[in-house]
């Protein structure tokens, strides 16, 4: 029932044609001239995102029927999933920055609720909190950026904000905030919002932990759709970002660093979902630096980034769905407890193979096309350092994906055998996976022309690209080298029990960034900021108030002593007063 509503909703909002006019609902005004409204703003990137979201959410809903079959509370799961889809659609279709922020937060809420779906698991609860707070931290900057840009441009609507004239006026006005250029500061703050949501380093720590949520959730929220919101935001604001070179520089560096860093970590992880999470991070880094290397004249990076968002959504979702199925079969997340599942899970084997080949960038599959364009964009834009990182990450990607693949499906089974006896591939779960292989294979080939021709920043027309032929060749070589190395290393079941040592230990523990966070939050913020504040509040501020209280009390007790209620004292005081008055009277008159 709930599922039916969810599906109907998803289908009804699936756009068949590109609607150019927008629908609006006046929400609240901010001052006399600025009316905030909620509505739909459709352009190539939002339509692309709407397609991705609706297709993937539909498939994930179907998959969840099988996955959540034995769960206690599907009645909570499906509404939350639908709520997420609602928020995500509101986000990508936002007509103005504030609407985007509203749905941006709602997406965060649904992510929080879904990560912590199994609320009785302390690890899931902690992960949900971590995800929410880190993204909230970034969102505070986002909000600040929105206010700053809105204030100086006099508008929040994208249609007004992204006009070349608006941006030009802002740039030429050289407005400053606390000594910083408003354009640079505003775009940077907006980008920090995307930084958190898309989990770029060092704000990435929430994403691997978010894998505590149910796997369908990881597949849709934490790989295919929500985490690309930051990329989407950057693309949405691209005309403005492109005029702020310092911000673009930050975008590029963050993206490239995340791509490399996450890929290195992914090579050492043992948790099936965390490997995929780091792989997602790495791919997000690709998308981000691709945007960073683009500008209004060389917009290939922009198209390539959106193209990669599109293709990545399919094969990464597919990888997660298959991982979920495997977890269901072996009741473990540790790839050390898997192996040799090729025979038991035939469908899964083949779809995972296709997805791995796609993400590794093997020619002919979707990932190859989009990644190739990113590398070309980096080279043509003259960003050679990013280009080298991108190529290197291509090799690492191929390596860790096939390490993952070999450890799961080849070799000997290393887990608890009796789980496997009853294991089977549920129809509900296999069907969406098979459907997803289609775009994973063909999306790149079929859609390349569309993306390079139509998905362009506003006001830019498609240009000719004659890419040097050696770039695709090199990319292919890198991926084949990676695959080959992984297959060689992990063909037989290796000894996985050994404790990682030295550099490998450092990487395995994710460079101890989580520990650093714990240190900063617990030791510094809680112990060194909040605790002294409480101490001051309890003893200094409240103490001062108590002193005042005691003073008034002691004053009262002095007064009370006089008003003892004893008649003879009153009479005595009266007499003394009388005498004093008489004496004074005698003295003065």
């Amino acid at each position, binding site marked *: 029932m709930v599922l039916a509503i969810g599906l109907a909703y998803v289908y009804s909002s699936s756009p068949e044609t590109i609607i150019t006019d927008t629908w609006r609902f*006046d*929400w*609240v*005004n*901010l*001052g006399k001239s600025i009316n905030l409204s909620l509505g739909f703003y459709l352009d190539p990137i939002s339509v692309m995102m709407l397609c991705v979201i609706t297709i993937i959410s539909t498939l994930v809903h179907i998959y969840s029927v099988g996955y959540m079959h034995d769960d206690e509370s599907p009645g909570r799961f499906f509404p939350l999933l639908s709520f997420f889809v609602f928020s995500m659609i509101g986000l990508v279709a936002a007509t103005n920055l*504030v609407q985007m*922020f*509203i*749905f941006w*937060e*709602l997406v965060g*809420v649904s992510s929080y*609720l879904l990560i*912590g779906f199994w*609320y*009785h698991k*302390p690890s899931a*609860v*902690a992960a*949900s*909190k971590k995800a*929410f*707070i880190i993204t*909230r*931290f970034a*969102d*505070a900057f986002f*909000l*600040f950026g929105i*206010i*700053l840009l*809105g*204030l100086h441009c006099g508008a929040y609507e994208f249609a007004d904000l992204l006009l070349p004239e608006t941006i030009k006026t802002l740039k030429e006005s050289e407005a400053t*905030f*606390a000594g910083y250029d408003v354009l640079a500061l505003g775009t940077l703050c907006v980008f920090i919002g995307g930084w958190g949501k898309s989990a770029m380093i060092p704000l990435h720590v929430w994403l691997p932990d978010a894998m505590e949520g149910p796997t369908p959730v990881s597949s849709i929220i934490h790989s295919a759709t929500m985490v690309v919101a930051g990329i989407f935001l950057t693309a949405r604001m691209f005309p403005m970002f492109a005029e702020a070179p310092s911000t673009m520089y930050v975008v590029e560096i963050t993206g490239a660093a995340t791509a490399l860093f996450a890929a290195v970590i992914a090579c050492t992880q043992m948790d099936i979902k965390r490997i995929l999470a780091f792989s997602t991070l790495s791919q997000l880094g690709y998308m981000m630096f691709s945007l960073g290397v683009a500008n209004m004249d060389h917009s290939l990076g922009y198209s390539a980034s959106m193209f990669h968002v599109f293709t990545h959504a399919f094969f990464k979702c597919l990888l997660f769905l298959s991982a979920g199925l495997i977890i269901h079969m072996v009741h473990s997340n540790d790839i050390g407890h898997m192996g040799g599942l090729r025979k038991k899970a035939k469908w899964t084997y083949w779809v995972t193979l296709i997805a791995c080949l796609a993400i590794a960038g093997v020619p002919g599959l979707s990932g190859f096309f989009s990644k190739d364009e990113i590398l070309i964009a980096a080279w043509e834009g003259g960003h050679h350092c990013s280009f080298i990182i991108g190529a290197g990450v291509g090799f690492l990607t191929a390596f860790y994906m096939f390490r993952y693949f070999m450890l799961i499906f080849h070799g000997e089974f290393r887990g608890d055998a009796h789980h496997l006896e009853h294991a089977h591939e549920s129809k509900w779960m296999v069907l969406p996976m098979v459907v997803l292989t289609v775009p994973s294979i063909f999306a790149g080939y079929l859609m390349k022309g569309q993306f390079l021709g139509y998905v362009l920043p506003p006001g830019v027309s498609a240009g000719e690209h004659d890419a040097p032929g050696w770039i695709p060749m090199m990319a292919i070589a890198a991926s084949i080298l990676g695959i080959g190395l992984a297959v060689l290393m992990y063909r037989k079941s290796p000894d996985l029990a050994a404790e990682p040592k030295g550099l490998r230990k450092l990487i395995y523990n994710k460079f101890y960034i989580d520990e650093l966070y714990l240190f900063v939050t617990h030791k510094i913020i*809680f112990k060194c*900021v*909040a*605790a002294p*504040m*409480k101490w001051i*509040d309890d003893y200094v*501020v*409240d103490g*001062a*108030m*108590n002193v*005042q*209280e005691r003073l*008034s009390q002691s004053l009262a007790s002095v007064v009370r002593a006089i008003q003892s209620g004893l008649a003879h004292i009153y009479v005595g005081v009266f007499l003394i007063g009388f005498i004093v008055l008489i004496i004074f009277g005698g003295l003065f008159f």
Partner: protein
Amino acid sequence: MAFLLNCTWILPALVAVLLMFVPKDNKPAIRMLSLIGAIVNLGIIAVLTIVFVNDPPALGDNPAATVLAFETKAMWFDKLNIYFHTGVDGFSLLMMLMASIIGLCGILVSWNIEDRCKEFFILLAALLSGTFGCFISFDLFTFFLFNELTLIPTYMLIGIFGSGKKEWAAMKLNLMLFGGSALIILGMAGMYIGSADAMKDRGFDLIAMAANGSIPVEIQMWAFPALFLGFAVLSSVFPFHTWSPAGHAAAPTAISMFLAGVHMKLGGYGCLRVGMYTMPEGAHACMDIFLVFATISVVYGAFIAIRHRDLKFINAYSSISHVGLVVFGFATFSALAIRGAIMQMVSHGFVTAVVFALIGSIYGRTHTRNVDEMGGLMKQIPFLSVAFVLAGFAVVGMPGTSSFVAELTIFVGSFQNPGADGGMNPDPLVLTCAVLCVLTIVTTAVYVLRTVNRVVNGPLTKDYDFGDANKIEKSAIIILLFCIFAMGIFPGWIANLVDGSLGPIMESLNRGAR
């Protein structure tokens, strides 16, 4: 209609008197009488609001004079020129709407009070009467009278019906609040005496004071800080906030709801309506200091809330942080931020009331308010837990809840404050404070999620044998949550209502800037 408006305070007073004649053992009758009184009162205010929205009073000749709807003006004390002057504009109507809803829910959550039931509801009715009287008074004298009238029932309600160190807390609360009142009297006396004799026929009339700018600037320079400080104590601005955690912790649920939801707003109402409106020059001269203290409240309250373990303390400090934002909004002098601050008053009223109602219901079951001793309540009491999570999101300021709209308006407004020259250059101090306030949304998320996760999530820590909320508790919580979400999703009409009544106040403030 004017009589109907006065009914809002007469009716609770009447209920209090009637309750005295109900035998004290007839508890159902006592409860029903209070409830009916509150519902009728809410109905009256709703009718007045509808009439007001459909037919708002036209502006008068003087743009700085608030035009009242449903006005009553009668000479009361001719020697001192004290009038009985009541009426409403959009701002006070909104506050009354909020107060009546919270009052109604307060009665609902107190349904199970057995011990001295009669006295409890009499005092509660007296409290409501004082509050409504305060919101409709436009003569400073009656305003003050009604304001004091709210303090005495509060004292007794905490001292008698509270828990823990109740006498101490009630004493502390009242000492501090009466201290505030003393400052208010000082300010009032200044406003009254300091003016030229010719002006004395205006007496204590708020609108006359503001509209003609009749209070001399040199008087304003000391009367405004005194008055504003007095009201700031009431809205628990740092460093005069310590009555609030102690008071809330000791108070019974309904009183906590009312204290944080309505009483602290009375302070904010006074700050704007009495302080800033009548003495704009004084406001401009010394608002920087209040701005700083309000910002400290915002940041400081949120950080301290992280460290506390007692649910009521957490919400008390959270209230300090959120009400600090109200004073912050006022102190920016931006029309938009002041509108946001007013919306924040209404919004926070509902939010904090629902949180206290939930804390009360949870405490009634677990018999502890320490978050470390709870856990996994989602399994045991799903309704209360889901409501707790939703209320938590409202505290964090998620879109869809009223606090988001209010906070967003304050933040946007504070960045476009008129600044010292009244032109396009915003005041750097305001901007610094605004950035700090924006960043506090993170701290808020930290303490809310810590609390929510410890209380409702995680494994069950004990074997509990209690059930979920009963119908009466549920109805109170649903009413309040409905208000929060209704205001969050359709904020437009409230914004318009506030904007309509803000015109004269801004006119007066802008005159003060010149």
